[in-house]
């Protein structure tokens, strides 16, 4: 395509063959998103999208503004100004108080070292806290305990009225990068290479008082922990910058399994060493983790890996899912998986069982397709294992969404309503099922006709 354009009329030949990334043609029958709305408003990179309820979501980014949107119509509901610097964390917080009606709140933390609670219904600022020594990098709401935590250079526990209940001592300058709730009033915090388990306990002298105690410090990771996800009450998973994936027991915080270099391709004969040298650490960084009960889905470098918790191995992978780092992945209720990447695209994958002859080695299809000249990390142990076992799975690209001109930071899946993506090009795009939208419009049309009393045309 591009060559044809530049060449000014030569046939577009071999467009896909140069790329190692799997591509899908323009015909995407399974891609339901045939309509889009561009939501403009942000003036800088949009990094966060959080869902408030079934049809509303909030977006926040480096411009310090939070927008509330209607996911169905794309209507801008509110524009929340209050932060002077970029927003570093945002969390929805629906407080269903004892007697009061449910109010939807969002908590946002910013690099201006403030923290603001917003009311989503009125679009007003409820409360603002600015007593931090460092930027809050993560926020977690513990609905069970009716408190929420902010993680920066220390860990603070707040109640819903924004009273500071307790805080830890100063941990490190780097601070907490991720928090995850564990059973038994515990939280796991990723602090650099360490994983620290804190326990919240009610203080003796007051019902509202809480104490936070460091229970355990796990130092199994070789590098900074970049992602942290809780699978269920028993298991949580961490991933690090050098591509370690560790499965932890959530109750006794022991290592259940680990994959240290399952994407390491050093043992593969095809790979040339000089290319390996050129690899950046980002290539193996676990950017994001998501899971369902069975599997953990890891965005590692440009690739996507599916790690089965029971089999304790990678059952499917797409080593070059995108042209550059995958920033966010999410598992959909159907067998689909959506990923977004720095290359500005969003891709929809489907986990499929592979029907194949047992004798045929699995990975070759992948590897040969990519050819030479790229840093393909192939044929690791997991893949070798895969050859021996059935069933085999693979991730098939069923569609891609191209709209953003810059890195897609995050997306939010709204089910029927569609998909919201946010990007460094300051835009949010709402992707919709065109068929559904069309019939909704028909519905609106006939409603309006009935309103106008002009419903005479029927066939």
């Amino acid at each position: 395509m591009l060559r044809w354009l530049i060449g000014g009329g030569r046939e577009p030949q071999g467009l896909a063959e140069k790329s190692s990334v799997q591509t899908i043609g323009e015909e995407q029958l399974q891609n339901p998103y045939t309509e889009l709305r561009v939501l403009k408003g942000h003036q800088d990179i949009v990094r966060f999208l959080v869902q408030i309820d079934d049809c509303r979501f909030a977006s926040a980014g480096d411009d310090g503004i939070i927008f509330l949107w209607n996911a169905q119509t794309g209507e801008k509901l509110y524009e929340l100004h209050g932060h002077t610097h970029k927003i570093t964390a945002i969390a929805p917080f629906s407080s269903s108080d004892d007697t009061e009606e449910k109010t939807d709140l969002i908590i946002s933390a910013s690099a201006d070292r403030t923290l603001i609670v917003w009311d989503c219904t009125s679009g007003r600022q409820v409360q603002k806290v600015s007593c931090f020594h460092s930027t809050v990098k993560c926020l977690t709401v513990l609905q069970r305990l009716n408190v929420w935590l902010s993680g920066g250079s220390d860990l603070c526990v707040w109640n819903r009225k924004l009273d500071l209940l307790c805080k830890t001592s100063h941990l490190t300058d780097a601070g907490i990068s991720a928090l995850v709730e564990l059973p038994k009033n515990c939280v796991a915090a990723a602090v650099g290479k360490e994983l620290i388990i804190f326990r919240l306990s009610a203080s003796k002298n007051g019902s509202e008082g809480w104490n936070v105690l460091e229970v355990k410090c796990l130092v199994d990771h070789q590098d900074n922990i970049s992602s942290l996800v809780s699978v269920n009450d028993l298991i949580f998973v961490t991933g690090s910058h050098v591509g370690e994936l560790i499965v932890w027991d959530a109750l006794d915080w022991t290592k259940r399994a680990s994959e240290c270099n399952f994407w390491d391709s050093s043992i593969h004969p095809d790979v040339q060493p000089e290319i390996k040298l050129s690899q950046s650490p980002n290539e193996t960084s676990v950017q994001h983790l998501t899971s369902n009960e069975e599997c953990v889905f890891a965005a590692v470098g440009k690739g996507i890996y599916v790690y089965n918790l029971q089999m304790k191995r990678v059952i499917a992978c797409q080593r070059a899912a995108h042209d550059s780092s995958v920033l966010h992945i999410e598992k959909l209720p159907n067998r689909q998986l959506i990923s977004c990447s720095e290359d500005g695209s969003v891709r929809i994958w489907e986990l499929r069982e592979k029907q194949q002859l047992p004798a045929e080695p699995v990975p070759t299809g992948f590897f040969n397709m990519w050819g030479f000249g790229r840093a393909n990390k192939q044929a690791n142990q997991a893949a070798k294992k895969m050859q021996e076992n059935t069933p085999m799975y693979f991730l098939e690209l069923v569609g891609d969404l191209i709209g953003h001109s810059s890195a897609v930071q995050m997306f939010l899946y709204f089910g029927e309503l569609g998909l919201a993506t946010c990007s460094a090009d300051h835009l949010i795009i709402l992707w919709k099922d065109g068929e559904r939208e069309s019939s909704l419009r028909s519905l609106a049309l006939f409603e309006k006709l009935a309103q106008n009393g002009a419903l005479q045309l029927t066939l």
Partner: protein
Amino acid sequence: MISAPDVVAFTREEELEDDLYREPPLPEEYSVPLFPFAGQGANPWAKVSGSKFTRDFILISEFSEQVGPQPLLTIPDDAKVSGTFDLNYFSLRIMSVDYQASFVGHPPGSAYPKLNFVEDSKVVLGDSKEGAFAYVHHLTLYDLEARGFVRPFCMAYISADEHKIMQQFQELSAEFSKASECLKTGNRKAFANELEKKLKDLDYTRTVLHNETEQQKKANDKGYYTTQAIEKANELASVEKSIIEHQDLLRQIRSYPYRKLKESEFHPYEPECALDRADVDGDQDPTASDPAEPGETHLYTHMPSYTPKLIKAKSAKCFDKKLKTLKELCDVYFFTQTLDQLHHIERTFRGDVCYLLTEQISRALLKQQSVTNFLFEDVSFLDEKPPEKPYRGCQGLGQDAVDEKCSEESLAPKVVISLGSYKSSVECVPIKMEQEMEDSEEPKMSESVMSEHQENLDYLDADIKGSISSGESIEVLGTEKSGSGLTKSESQASLPVIPSPQAGRSKVGSRRTVSEDSIEVLSTCPSESLIPEDFKASYPSAINEEPYVDDNEGGLRFTPRLNPGVDGGQHDISKQESLVQVDAACCIGKESPNFLEPLPELGQKPCEEDGVVRIPPQPYRPAEQGLRGGFPSHDGLSGGLLPYELDSRYLTGSREVSKSSLDECSDSTSYISSAASTCSDRTPSPAHLACATGERHRKRAGQNALRFIRQYPFAHPAIYSLLSGRTLVVLGEDEAMVKKLVTALSIFVPNCGVYAKPVKHWVTSPLHLVDFQKWKLIGLQRTVSPAGVNVLHALSRYSRYLSILDADSKTLRCPLYKGTVVARLADHRTQIKRGSTYYMHVQSILTQLCSKAFLFAFCHHLHFPISEREPEESVVNRRINFLKLQLGLANEDIKIVQYLAELLKLHYIQEPGQGGNPLLRFDYVPSFLYKI
């Protein structure tokens, strides 16, 4: 554009035909009878070819009190336009039929001169010798220096085509009224200024005189007054009287009710003061109204520091002074506004009447299609024209509407101006249309109006006598007074028409009969004046002669419509209709005593037995209040047929229609070319009210589009891309070439809203997703610079949303198209030669598509299950079947209609105030590369 001009039968002259038609003699039934006056290839609707001017123009004349009727200026201001046509002579003609009574003087009961705020009079007259027909709009302007303070002017629209004048009478009248109102407003302002200055002068003079008198008194102690002193005292008295008179005049001119200002947009500076117009109809001795000659007062120095001058008692000789020019009379601002308006009129009515009428009809029809008209039409101009009456929506597809329409049609008058039915003797021109006050609601008013009219008539008589004594032939085709002195309610209360029992008036008529001049009254009420509201006009000033008592002379006759049975029981519509009928009879001049009996010609099809279309399209008339239907009511014969024809074509969408449309267009091509070359107006016919630039743009776009579809074999998929909402990018290095292509293709781009077309002619920066939402056709620069590479990268990235036409290498990358609609739209073997014709062709097919999209979008069961249990699949099946079978769409054509339907839905459900978030719809379909 809904319709292209219909097929026109052509006739040739005898000699030519002999040669051509010799060997295969046509069967009798197919032969086309000759159009009697046709020159070679002439437009059969061009009524007179013997005119001395090349095209229609507007003439402003004045009946100067010094030199008599004289032409002042013409629009367009070009000597070529009027050609050998004698403007002086024609000015004399048109000024001689000024019926208005505009007199200022001392009414019998009043001590002061009164200004008479006369309505303009509007007449149509023709001069068969010159081959000129004119709509003449008389107006009077005030001038302190003029005799009786008034200066009679007239503006005339002169055309060689009498039908044009007659059929566009209403429009002409409306437009000229605006111009006249503008002039008069300026004039009132100037007149008031002048009066103020005059008052200051008089005041000053009085002071001076007073002082002198006092001095004389002091100096004189003899106990008696010298003649000098008496003279001075008299002078002083006359100055004082003059002051009072002028103050009164000033009050009058200031209290002029600016009731018309609401309608016209010309007078932004004028205050709105809706004072009652003083009942100043009356008369005074005109000679006594000039007590002091203003002499050397300077005009139009708006500075407040005006130094008053001494006014001499002796007035200057009338013929010594120089009369003010029109510009001076009316204030420069208003004068230029008027000129603009007149130019606008000239542009508007340029071209053949058939074209104008077709344009009006299609505009009126388009206006009704409020749901779909935004798609391919420039709807902005639809809103421009205020005088059209509002419709009640477009839902009038119901049967009752049709019925009403039919009944209206059958009752609609036919206007045939038959020259033979009149004697060429002088007829009684002014017609009194006094209204009977049946319910005696305001009989007093009626009486007073009558008596005033009677009074006026005497003056009128005197005036006319002078003018008609010249022994030339003038045919007065029609007169009308549209400005009604009565208010609406008054006139509505009195609907039936009876002859006014004024016997004294007949002497005027007889006097005229005696004169050897032949004034032929062809029609006094053109068809356009049939609208009851205008009919109600009570001809306040001049035309209130009662009709002849004995009609043996062939004069116009009003027979009282005395049928209480019909009158009493029926509602408004019937009244209006009956009125219309009466009126029609008046126009035709039939002497049938019973107006209830429908005229035999009514309901006739435009094709007569010989199969020739004799009658051009009739003007579209907005439906009256009683007619709720979406169908227009037409006054003329073909009017009834036309909308049905159009509608059926749109709704059926059948093959024949679409096939025939091509032929039609080729016919209309030749028609247009011949019309343009031979009809009296050699100027191209513009779009009706759309500005000339828009027309030129259409023409150019049509021409470019024609070239495009002939040059590029892949025009079809390109056009398909546009119609299905896929953005087409025209990529090229040469800006002019790209812009040309974009212009060509822009006629295929559906609008997304009522705003501007989503077309961007030239872009040099890389495109973004947002651009594809906004624009559906983009001209993009190809450069070799690094920036250019970025541009191409963006194109490549978003290629799924785009079709790319490479203007340099003549390639196109876009989805496949296998439908049939575009093939009809853009046939590279088309016979259409002219850009504007092709544009019309495109518009007509696009309108068909619109109607299909409308049907698709607004059929409930195509989108929703009929019963609750019905599965979704059957709805989908029904939808597909409807598209394929009912609408006759194949393959990708379905997507076009679906896209258009989606636009319609969006447009319909969109809240008025809200712009709405634009959305982009797309398909995941593979693209192909087309090369020449």
